[in-house]
């Protein structure tokens, strides 16, 4: 049965929340049950932002979790916080460009990607979130790349529409690492 509890975490502005929403939209397109919940509170610029996304074939109970089955970490504080929490047998996807440490976990799958560097080469470092998301769906098989691309087309904001194709490329580049 498909069931994945994922935490996506980074600095504010790195697109952790958007990547989570995109995953949620694609989940709905594939008729899965979906919850998306952000950490919210009095935040400051440059502070951390994270969300928990659950996609499942069965109705979702707890939308807030302690130990995710997967974590996508965009910066060092997120790595320090979530690396120890991933469930044994789970998945950790690391933005190597901004995280100069290696995971010591032997009981989970770790995928390390220079995501910010790849995104910069594609024209905008802020697409690192989708590089990592591409690796995530390739590694889990949770949803198809087609659903993700199609939902990206629907939900990318008008002012970022010129970045649609580079974002799709970012997804594919990431998928190559998984």
């Amino acid at each position, binding site marked *: 049965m498909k069931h994945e509890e994922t935490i996506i975490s980074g600095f504010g502005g790195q697109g952790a929340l958007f990547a989570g929403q995109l995953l949620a939209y694609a989940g709905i397109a594939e008729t*899965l049950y*979906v*919850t998306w919940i952000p950490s*919210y509170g009095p935040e400051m610029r440059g502070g951390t932002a994270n969300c928990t996304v659950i996609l499942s074939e069965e109705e979702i109970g707890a939308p*807030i979790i302690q130990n995710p089955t997967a974590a996508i970490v965009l910066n060092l504080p997120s790595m320090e916080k979530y690396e120890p929490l991933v469930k044994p047998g789970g998945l950790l996807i690391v933005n190597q460009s901004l995280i100069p440490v290696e995971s010591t976990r032997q009981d989970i799958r770790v995928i390390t990607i220079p995501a910010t560097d790849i995104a910069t080469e594609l024209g905008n470092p802020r697409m690192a979130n989708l590089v990592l998301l591409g690796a995530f769906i390739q590694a889990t098989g949770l949803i198809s790349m087609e659903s993700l691309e199609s939902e990206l087309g629907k939900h990318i904001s008008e002012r970022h529409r010129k970045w649609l194709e580079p974002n799709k490329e970012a997804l594919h580049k990431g998928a190559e690492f998984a």
Partner: protein
Amino acid sequence: MAKELLKGNVAFAEAAVRYGLEAYFGYPITPQSEALEHLSGRMVELGRVFLQAESEVAAVNMVYGAASAGVRVMTSTSGPGFALMAEGLSYIAGSEVPAVFVNMMRGGPGLGNIQPSQADYFFMTKTAGHGDFHPLVLAPASIQELIDMMGLAFELAEKYRTLVYIAGDGSLGQMMESAELPPMQPLREKRPDWAVIGCEGRDPNIITSLYLGAKNLEAVNIRLQKKLAEIKQNETRWKEYETEDAEILLVAYGTVGRICTSVVRESRKQGLKIGLLRPQTLWPFPDTRIRELAAQVKAILVSEMSAGQMLEDVERTAQGQCPVKFYGRLGGVVPLTDEILSETRKLVREVA
């Protein structure tokens, strides 16, 4: 209608629009402000009334006024704002006009914080306001249920001419979930016959909560109590999960209620006979069913995001037939599946 990804605050606001909301008066407060943001555009676009009042005190009295004119009306807020509305709530209850209030509870007391909480249970169910009355309190646990309960809230408010509260919490307001909105319904064409809308050619309707003379007011109160008894009889709602053979019963509502469905799932995998009763109405409270289950199970565990408020209703209802234990988190902390599961296991060992 297809399933969409909807944020709780936007979902209930849009559901209200589609269920024929005619007027909204409110004042922004986190964690429910997205509702005002949504309605400020949507209501105006549809030619309906949206007004951001100067305070919650003003907003509740605008709601009172619109309700007296038979307008389908609501507001939404969070704890500190709801507290400011207390005077108006009592006037609305005394005047017997229908009005719907959403409270996305946050950590208290005082300004507290903006994290999810269930610590307004006493305030919401045991009458926020002076005098003898109970509002009807609905407690959704998912965004779909929140949407569905908006329709139910208007229906019940108008059927009984009573106050209906929706008891949500910050996480329900802030989370996004797959859910389906209802189709757009037409606005009501006719005002109720008790509404004060001008009385040319007929006797005036009077809406008041002022009854000088003790005998008069006692008669009004007796009638109100009769109505509350009828609501209790007809409108008590709850959901049960795996209670048939349960030896331990969990009782939890709203966000904690849905977390407890995960607890039941996990504990069943481990061979523990755990069931859950999730009240969908906090007033009226599912007394009769909990009393029955209290006779069946070895113990009850109540879990809330409070220091134990619904706990008192469960204790009252269980009538000492089995031990009633409590696990809660305070100040905006959400109890997680593993924590409640470990409390449940502890209880299993205690009563073995």
